[in-house]
């Protein structure tokens, strides 16, 4: 390394010059050494003439990766770029796979007490020693994300949590090193914690979760996906202490039972207004209709409800839930095969805020339910509908397409007419008239005959429990008044996106004709629309599908027609295509390569 000699009688900013001896790293030719470099005032770069604070502010405009490159220019730049005030937020998302562990530590140490947000998601290279170093230097961290940092140990996490008492958001998901002792520490030290994600930590027990509940009363968002031991005692303690909880994820907690959920809600009931708005109970396979009853009675503000994979749920539960909980916006009912059109109609009659409804693999949903949902129900804000593997046919696509192309006022009038007809589209009479749903429980009287559901619903929503001879005015009077209350407002045209993968009764022609009528208000994602994308060179990735241009070769068209006719012959019972299963027929030449099931 060669230091350039700068004559001291030059320049009006002596301080800047003497602080920055410019150094050249690496071999230098002799000619450069023998030349005397005269540094005059004009040859100092304008950047270096600025005060330090302004230089730091300019550096603050650079993204993190560029800033790290700037540290290699000279000592002065290194000092400026590693100034703590520039690193209040470390987000390694763009470069977590490339940055070495020492560099990460250097940034962390440089940030020091300024560090507030530390997102180390995916930094597998972060070691326990590194985390302990960071814990010594950075006590003011408020947001910490250590998801998938598998190199750290329980002890180092404990060190960090002991020091960083200002944490608000903590993500420790997927780490096997998180144990009950860690959670005890969380409960003791992190009293201001607002969001906690300890999903998929396999070594936790109920004791740790209880410690968190007792110690962190301000928690608003708690993710306990895959937690193995959520019994009644734990859930009741969660309900008792976490009074501000708004997001709760208990996906894949297969041990969760109805009683545990009830214990949680009962403890929460002591609060004046339960705040729970997002509830994820996917794959909690032991939950039954009783849980829906508990949810209906205790969660008054629920907007997002995920119930995919809770296979024991039936129409009874949803018919109980729908009139009582009217705030739902996203509802996921994938794989609930016991649900029929009755549930859909009940939702259609009672959920004005519904935006997204997923009915994938609900094999008993047929045309009439969907028609009622889109055309005649109160779900005016419905935007996404997933009907994979349902028994809907082309007719419903056609009906929806025609409906969407009507001017909005006409749509509204159509809905009003339907609602005012004497109970024809009310959920009561559809039980008698629906012939497509094979399972027709007497849901009208379900609420009264089954003792379990015997509590009376609120007086304003009595559509499902009124006596069979329905008077025309009782059912949905509030809806008609609501509809009339917006007389001259501008009504936006509705947009709907429908997903109909694997529906054996939907054909390509049906999809195309519906799209031809109603696109762009209607987008349909289907096997055929995907294949059109592929053949059309996939010019855009989105699901919007215009009518396919006719410049295809004949062969693909014939091929697709064959596919569609073959699909048409699939009966309802045979819902799964089996294209990849070897039949084990005789005469297969390469037995070793066959998949034999």
């Amino acid at each position: 390394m060669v230091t350039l000699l700068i004559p001291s009688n030059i320049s009006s900013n002596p301080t800047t010059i003497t602080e920055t001896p410019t150094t050249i790293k690496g071999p230098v030719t002799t000619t450069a050494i023998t030349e005397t470099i005269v540094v005059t005032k004009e040859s100092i770069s304008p950047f270096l003439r600025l005060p330090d604070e302004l230089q730091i502010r300019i550096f603050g405009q650079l993204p993190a990766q560029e800033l790290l490159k700037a540290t290699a220019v000279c000592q002065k730049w290194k000092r400026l770029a590693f100034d703590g005030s520039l690193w209040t937020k470390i987000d390694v998302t763009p470069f977590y796979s490339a940055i070495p562990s020492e560099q990460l530590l250097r940034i962390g140490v440089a940030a020091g007490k300024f560090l507030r947000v530390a997102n180390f998601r995916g930094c597998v290279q972060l070691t326990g020693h590194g985390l302990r170093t960071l814990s010594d230097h950075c006590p003011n961290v408020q947001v910490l994300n250590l998801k998938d940092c598998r190199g750290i140990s329980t002890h180092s996490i404990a060190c960090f949590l002991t020091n960083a008492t200002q944490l608000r958001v903590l993500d420790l998901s997927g780490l096997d090193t998180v144990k009950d002792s860690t959670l005890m520490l969380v409960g003791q030290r992190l009293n201001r914690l607002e969001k906690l994600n300890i999903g998929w930590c396999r070594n936790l027990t109920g004791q740790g979760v209880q410690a968190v509940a007792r110690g962190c009363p301000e928690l608003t968002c708690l993710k306990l996906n895959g937690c193995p031991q959520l019994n009644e005692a734990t859930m009741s303690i969660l309900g008792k202490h976490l009074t501000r909880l708004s997001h709760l994820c208990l996906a894949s907690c297969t041990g969760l039972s109805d009683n545990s959920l009830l214990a949680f809600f009962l403890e929460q009931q002591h609060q004046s207004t339960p705040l729970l708005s997002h509830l994820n109970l996917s794959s909690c396979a032991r939950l039954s209709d009783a849980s829906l009853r508990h949810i209906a009675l205790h969660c008054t503000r629920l907007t997002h409800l995920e119930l995919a994979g809770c296979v024991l749920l039936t129409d009874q539960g949803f018919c109980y839930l729908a009139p009582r909980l009217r705030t739902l916006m996203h509802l996921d009912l994938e794989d609930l095969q016991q649900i029929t059109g009755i549930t859909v109609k009940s939702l259609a009659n009672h959920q004005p805020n519904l935006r997204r409804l997923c009915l994938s693999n609900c094999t008993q949903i047929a045309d009439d339910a969907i028609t009622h949902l889109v055309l005649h129900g109160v779900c005016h804000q419905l935007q996404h509908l997933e009907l994979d593997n349902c028994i809907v046919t082309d007719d419903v696509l056609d009906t929806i397409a025609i409906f969407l192309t009507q001017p909005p006022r006409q749509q509204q009038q159509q809905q009003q007419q339907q609602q005012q007809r004497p109970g024809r589209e009310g959920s009561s009479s559809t039980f008698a008239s629906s012939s497509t749903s094979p399972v027709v429980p007497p849901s009208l009287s379900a609420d009264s005959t089954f003792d379990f559901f015997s509590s009376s619903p609120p007086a304003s929503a009595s559509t499902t429990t009124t006596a069979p001879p329905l008077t025309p005015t009782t059912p949905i009077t509030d809806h008609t008044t609501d509809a009339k209350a917006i007389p001259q407002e501008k009504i936006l045209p509705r947009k709907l996106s429908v997903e109909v993968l694997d529906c054996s009764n939907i054909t390509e022609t049906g999809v195309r004709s519906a799209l031809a009528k109603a696109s762009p208000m209607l987008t349909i994602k289907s096997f055929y629309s995907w294949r059109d994308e592929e053949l059309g060179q996939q010019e855009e990735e989105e699901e919007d599908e215009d009518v396919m241009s006719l410049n295809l070769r004949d062969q693909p068209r014939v091929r697709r027609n064959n596919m569609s006719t073959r699909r048409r012959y699939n009966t309802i019972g045979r819902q799964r295509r089996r294209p990849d299963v070897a039949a084990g027929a005789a005469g297969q030449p390469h037995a070793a390569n066959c998949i034999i099931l």
Partner: protein
Amino acid sequence: MGKRQPAYLPDSRIYSCTTCHSHLLSHQSIVSKAFQGRYGPAYLVSHVVNVTLGTKEERMLLTGMHTVADISCSVCGTRIGWKYLCALEESQKYKESKYIVEKAKIAKEVMWDF
């Protein structure tokens, strides 16, 4: 080798590996859910992340001879399906460069804010 860095998907509805919970595919890349894999129902997917490709081999499936390569999760190593590399018959050409992912090996995840 050493520990493998997982990739992350920016979407809010994704499916992840049941063993190690690394992101595998997003909801938009599902083409069909009605396929059958080795162990049960499977999805046909156009794009996956965090998978490693195995050796390619010729397999005789019910629909004909295909060249496939098994895919496994790059973080935990569990086999999650296979990728179609080449299909001999014209009617099966649409599957090429698509992946079959077993439903039993993936779990649905919805990200609300994290």
